[in-house]
């Protein structure tokens, strides 16, 4: 029997630490894309709550700490870290489809500000806020997971580009700080 080796989206590109910023891959075993059928959002939310303890998220919000529900577009969310129950929704298994990188550190927001047009100030973009936006030339998602940490996600095929862009931005930030010293 052939034994296959599972590779994570970012593989051996991560972890990295550059200046004050660290880049670590976030591995989520199960991700299901959920798009409730017309008029079924409340029913879907109730069914999710009964099954995994969290409802369908409001726009631009990510809820839950164990299993999570992350809004990812109009009428769409990702159920992460739990198997998805039967719902009155279009459900698509997207486990392994996303590359997720945790950007953590004092300069995390400054590094991301080089790549995204999003307003990442803590007063505007709080813990539990998520947004679909641009990361360099890629469309993806950014979620604030803490005071100095963000989760950045793009489709798996763009994992290496994401790591490259984040690394470049972090190196530029770091270079700027060390040359000014």
């Amino acid at each position, binding site marked *: 029997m052939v034994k296959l080796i599972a590779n994570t989206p970012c593989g051996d590109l991560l972890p990295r630490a550059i200046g004050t910023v660290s880049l670590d891959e976030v591995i989520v075993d199960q991700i299901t894309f959920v798009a409730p059928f*017309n*008029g079924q*959002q409340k029913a879907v939310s109730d069914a999710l709550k009964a099954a995994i303890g969290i409802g369908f998220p*409001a*726009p*631009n919000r990510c809820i839950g700490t164990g299993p999570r529900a992350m809004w990812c*577009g*109009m*009428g*769409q969310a990702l159920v992460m870290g739990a198997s998805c129950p039967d719902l009155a929704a279009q459900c698509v298994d997207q486990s392994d489809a996303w590359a997720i990188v945790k950007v953590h550190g004092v300069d995390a927001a400054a590094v991301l500000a080089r790549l995204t*047009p*999003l*307003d990442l100030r803590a007063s505007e973009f709080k813990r539990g806020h998520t*947004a*679909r*936006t*641009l990361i360099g030339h890629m*469309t993806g998602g950014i979620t604030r997971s803490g005071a100095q940490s963000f989760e950045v996600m793009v489709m798996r095929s763009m994992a290496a580009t994401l790591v490259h862009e984040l690394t470049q931005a972090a190196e530029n930030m770091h270079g700027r700080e060390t040359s000014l010293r």
Partner: protein
Amino acid sequence: MRLPCPLCGERDRREFYYQGHATMLDRPARDAGIDAWDDYLHNRDNIAGEVEDLWHHEAGCGAWIKVTRNTVTHEVSGAKLVNGARK
């Protein structure tokens, strides 16, 4: 330029795709006649003042929005979801 997406809040213009005048929402009936269709497809007023445009939040939530914008002052005074029901 920033556009107020009704779902996402104020976002940078780079996240949006510009479609054109909101006339596109008022599709004539199939049998409306050649003049109505000609107007719908080709004829637009070049207004100095308030206009309604269609924009697609393509790098964001994916919603089509109708933006009210002033071509003289460049003020963006509001935006509505084209499909108002879903969030």
